[in-house]
């Protein structure tokens, strides 16, 4: 008796759940087939309605660390007669998880700023972003200023996103520390061997007065990127032997020379490159171009009085100066949006020349590069004008290319790098493990 009733209840509930599952999949099917419906609808509405169309664009930290989104949206709203963009602000730490849940539940969002290539890859895989070719050809939009980056964001021949920002690694140095040590400032043609030697000379002091020659931040790929610039391998296809010189360099500097804080110390003390450099504890470090904007802003705000300069990132002897690793920040149209035309207007603005100049004025490197944009960056008050050449690159290798396993590879790389850098594994063991785990991953996700 009792048992029967329980089974009945259970079956009932499971039915509800399956119904539910049915709904879920129906919704996503609709979403997948939406692009066709989309354009008709927008055409119909633009002809009848004269007031501004509202679109929602998701991005991060507009109140604290990424105020440029706000600037862009305000400027766009001022200039556009047809479209009004509303920003949906999400904390950058939780950006990927939170946007994923929102998109799954079908929140009405129209456009998205994408934090990194792994997120771009999963959006692509989940068919949550829509191709832009139709709009590009309609407007005859010039893709040339994006250079090779335009191709990075193509899938099956279609442009799926615009490169809004394109940061790359450069070298930052503290002039005062160099002056004190009576060493010449770093030049654009510095090699990693020279970098190591100079770092050793710049290291001094103890305890709270310690000055480090350099600092490697605890990003997942800080060290790996050093080798990725050589184009001898990449983070997706396996065969990680090519990363060995990078890990050797980092470990020698951290463990033997003691010219860089160890990974373990940096991780456990929650060290941050900005505080390390701005408080004068680090003589020079390699960091993304976004750091320019931070330094300018903080100096203006008076939180630091550092006297800084920039140069091209160091390179291995066999490569040319100006060889470095870069990272794209794409912006895209969500396939669930019914307002593709309006979203395109905003994308075109923020990732186009106008937006690029605005980013440049904030000290950020846009994806859209031409002379006007470069001038904008170099002419900001507080930019080290003598070091303009640091921003000229010869070869910017993408840190990670779009791939269905990109997010998982990044996680695996982070785990194994951590083991190598904390000396829980030797470099060879760690890299071998990386190879094996990549193989397993490829087999799993066939």
């Amino acid at each position, binding site marked *: 008796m*009792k048992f029967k*009733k*329980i089974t009945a209840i259970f079956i009932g509930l499971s039915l509800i759940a399956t119904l*539910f599952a049915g*709904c*879920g999949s129906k919704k996503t099917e609709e979403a997948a087939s939406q692009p066709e419906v989309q354009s008709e609808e927008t055409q119909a509405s633009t002809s009848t309605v004269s007031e501004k169309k509202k679109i929602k664009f998701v991005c*991060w*930290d507009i*109140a*604290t*660390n*990424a105020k440029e989104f706000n600037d862009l949206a305000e400027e766009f709203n001022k200039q556009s007669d047809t479209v009004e963009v509303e920003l*949906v*602000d*999400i*904390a*950058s*730490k*939780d950006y990927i*998880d*939170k946007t994923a*849940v*929102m998109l*799954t*539940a*079908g*929140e009405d969002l129209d456009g998205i700023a994408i934090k990194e290539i792994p997120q771009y890859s999963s959006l692509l895989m989940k068919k949550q972003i829509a191709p832009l070719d139709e709009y590009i050809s309609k407007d005859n939009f010039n893709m040339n200023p994006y250079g090779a980056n335009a191709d990075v964001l193509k899938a099956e021949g279609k442009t799926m996103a615009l490169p809004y920002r394109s940061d790359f690694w450069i070298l930052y140095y503290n002039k005062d520390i160099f002056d004190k040590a009576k060493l010449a400032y770093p030049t654009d043609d510095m090699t990693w061997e020279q970098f190591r030697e100079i770092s050793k000379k710049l290291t001094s002091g103890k*305890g*709270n007065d310690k000055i480090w020659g350099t600092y490697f931040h605890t*990003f997942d790929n800080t060290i790996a990127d050093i080798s990725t610039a050589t184009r001898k391998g990449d983070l997706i296809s396996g065969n990680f032997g090519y990363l060995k010189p990078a890990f050797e360099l980092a470990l020698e500097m951290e463990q033997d020379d003691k010219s860089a804080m160890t990974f373990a110390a940096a991780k456990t*003390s*929650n*060290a*941050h490159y*900005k*505080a*390390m450099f*701005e*408080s004068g504890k680090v003589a020079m470090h390699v960091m993304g171009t*976004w750091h320019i904007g*931070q330094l300018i802003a903080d100096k203006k705000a008076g*939180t*630091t009085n550092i006297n800084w300069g920039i140069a091209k990132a160091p390179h291995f002897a066999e490569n040319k100066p100006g060889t470095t690793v870069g990272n794209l920040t794409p912006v895209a149209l969500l396939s669930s949006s019914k307002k593709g035309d309006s979203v395109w207007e905003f994308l075109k603005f923020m990732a186009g020349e106008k937006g690029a100049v605005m980013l440049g004025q904030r000290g950020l490197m846009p994806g859209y590069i031409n002379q006007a944009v470069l001038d904008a960056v170099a002419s900001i008050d507080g930019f080290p004008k003598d070091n303009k050449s640091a921003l000229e690159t010869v070869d910017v290798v993408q840190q990670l290319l779009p791939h269905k396993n990109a997010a998982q590879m990044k996680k695996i790389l982070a785990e194994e790098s951590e083991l190598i850098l904390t000396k829980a594994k030797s470099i060879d063991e760690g890299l071998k493990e990386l190879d094996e785990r990549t193989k397993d991953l490829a087999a799993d996700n066939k």
Partner: protein
Amino acid sequence: MPINTELRRSKPNLTTILGYIGLSIAAVLVMFPFAWMLSASFKPDNDVYEFPIRWIPKIFRWQNYVDIWKQIKFGVFYFNTVKLTVIITFLQLLTSSLAAYAFAKIKFKGRNTLFIAYIGTIAVPFQVYMIPQFIIIRKLGLSDSHLSLILIQAFTAYGVFLLRQFFMSIPEELSESARIDGLGELGIYAKIILPLAKPALTSLGIFTAVFVWNDFLGPLIYLTSQKNLTIQLGIRLFLSDYNQSFALIMAAAVCSMIPVVLIFLIAQRFLIEGIATTGIKG
């Protein structure tokens, strides 16, 4: 008898003193991180990472406590958190105590099975069912509203479980004699069980309030607009790949702890008002 009470009074004295010494040492260890938090909250951001730790800041930067209210909408986040905490805690206490009474004091068929189903869901990590839950909330048109959080957090199995355990330890004779006196189940619940269960209700109240106050994943998923965020989400705004302001995080954390400490100081009086102290004969 007199000998016995005397023994009780004199003998524990030494052990009591030793006990307090032990407790004091333990308390110092327990409070260690808070000393760091407090000290960091008064430092300029770039000094927070200094080693060896400087416990008394070189420069006192009181401005941190001003900045947190200016840089983010901390006042709004504070208000939201208070509002959610009060409503959810009240609903949780009310509905859980009713359900727990049914589980503990009324014999009905399927009781144990249903109870296991309740506990069972506690064992499923939120991370797994938050997507389907979010879809339901979204279908009800409630995403990015405080109501969504209230609905998902006010009816948890946890509260029912906790109260059931306490209700079970209340002697059956009490409710039996009330039944003979003609009191209905609702009467027994309100007049006998609830007053006796003050410690349990207080523990659940504290638990729920602290949980809601410090919850992070729930608000992260359910709240989006700045006007709806809670303190814990607000604190995260000081943390990103491009920047981290630990001084401000610590200042915000210190401010956010104050009301919870006050609630605890007030509520702890009820914790010791059990059957033992109310003097009802078992």
